[in-house]
């Protein structure tokens, strides 16, 4: 890992090398959820991970963000191998690496206002205080197309599509480089899906984001699919 900054602009933002995840089921059985996946992502790119449900792609998304520890393999993000980090160092890396979750109903803490939800990552890293927080939250709400004065409302007051926008705002709060989108629209009605996909596309242009897009809709192998988001949806 000799000075990754020196490498050319073609240095991938994320390099996944032979990542393996086994789950233990029962006494002797193991389930190979992810078995030796490798791929690379360049900055600004969108990569789709496509496969049927149960093929381990959601697990893979959690391995990339290190929400689950990998059994073996490397996840090299911006030149740093995340699988070797733990505790505080890994936590610091999360600033750059965010995630949008599949279920807009389950991924927002029902006991928190959406302002607190969106500001939580900022507060975890001590990046905002008091009035600053409010301003930043309102800005983020505006960015994802929600009324900025909704910041004191609770998640259950919003529709599925609106909730997913809140999840996106939370992921954007830390100005990350890479966002892993875990089936961000599969829980939404077809008519709403397009709204969210379009928003994600706009944000990508706006903030130079890199996306990993996890989807189940195209029956393609889950290796390396350079599929844009609007193609992975159906």
């Amino acid at each position: 890992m000799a000075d990754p900054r020196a490498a050319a602009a073609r240095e991938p933002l994320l390099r996944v090398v032979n990542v393996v995840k086994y789950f233990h089921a029962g006494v002797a059985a193991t389930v190979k959820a992810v078995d030796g996946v490798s791929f690379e992502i360049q900055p600004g790119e969108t990569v789709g991970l496509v496969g049927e449900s149960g093929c381990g792609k959601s697990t893979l998304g959690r391995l990339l963000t290190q929400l689950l520890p990998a059994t073996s393999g490397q996840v090299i993000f911006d030149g740093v191998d995340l699988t070797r980090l733990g505790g505080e160092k890994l936590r610091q890396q999360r600033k750059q690496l965010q995630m949008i979750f599949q279920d807009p109903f389950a991924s927002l803490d029902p006991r928190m206002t959406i302002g607190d939800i969106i500001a939580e990552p900022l507060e975890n890293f001590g990046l905002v205080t008091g009035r600053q927080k409010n301003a930043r939250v309102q800005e983020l709400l505006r960015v994802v197309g929600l009324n900025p004065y909704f910041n004191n409302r609770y998640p259950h007051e919003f529709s599925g599509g609106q909730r997913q926008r809140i999840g996106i705002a939370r992921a954007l709060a830390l100005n990350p480089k890479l966002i892993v989108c875990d089936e961000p629209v599969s829980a939404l009605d077809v008519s709403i899906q397009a709204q969210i996909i379009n928003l994600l596309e706009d944000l990508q242009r706006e903030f130079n984001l890199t996306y990993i897009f996890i989807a189940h809709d195209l029956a393609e192998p889950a290796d390396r699919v350079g599929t844009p988001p609007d193609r992975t949806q159906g």
Partner: protein
Amino acid sequence: MATAMPTPATIDYAGGTLAREQVSLWRDGIRRLRRNKLALGAAIYLGFLALVCLVSIFWTPYKPNVIGTCETYQLPSAAHPLGCDDLGRDSLSRLMVGSQVSLSVGLATAIIVLGVGVVVGLIAGYFRGAADAIVSLGINIFYGVPPLLVAVALYVLLGSGLINIIIAISATVWMDMARLARGQALSIREREFIEAARAGGARWGKILFGHILPNALGPIIVQATFVIPVAILTAAFLSFLGFGVPPPKADWGGMANEGLPSLQGGFDPYILLFPALALSITLLAFNFFGDGLRDAFDPRQKR
């Protein structure tokens, strides 16, 4: 950090207004609780009982522990509305004082169990592994013996006295709370918003007490309201068997115990009846209130 983020021009506020305008979950629950007449009645009774308890500390119609205040086995009369017991003490006064024991045992046990059970359970459920193994083993061992017997053994070991009774009872009822908190932590930790919090860089203390506890609070509070009657009941059982607060201090279970021989011997049944009634109504009130609370805050209740 407040770098200017230009708003994408094409997006108007999506969905415009809220999907549904709604009061918060808590206020909604309180509204439902208010509509529950039984729970409301129970709450009023409990308030009255608390008042009686407070008054009895300073004033009772007769001295509750003085023998020979009136005739033994005197039936209810104007001077002694609830009659007198086998030692000629005024039953009403003793009944009033007896509320102190029941209420303090119930509340103190609930508080101890809340503190110990919730923390132990949350930690076991969130960290799993060794912490969980130890806590679960402890829970299983305590579930392996009848609680009343444990309380008796502890009572005998610690000696009589209100505090010792509370400790003995707490030791026998903490497991339900710990198991509930553990189960809540186990299931809530798998919910996506916990993953989202971790992805957002939250530390474990924040996840445990900032996310998991608030979401588990509903069932925990409901469980706590059920700890109170169970504790009162256990205390009454202990007293009834002769392991209560030391005489002459009055408590309902002990009073019922004193009344049993007179009942079986064919004497004044009121000696037993009134403390039994007071105990039953109080337990009923706590249970109705607890049931009402659970119904009101049950997330599956939709209205």
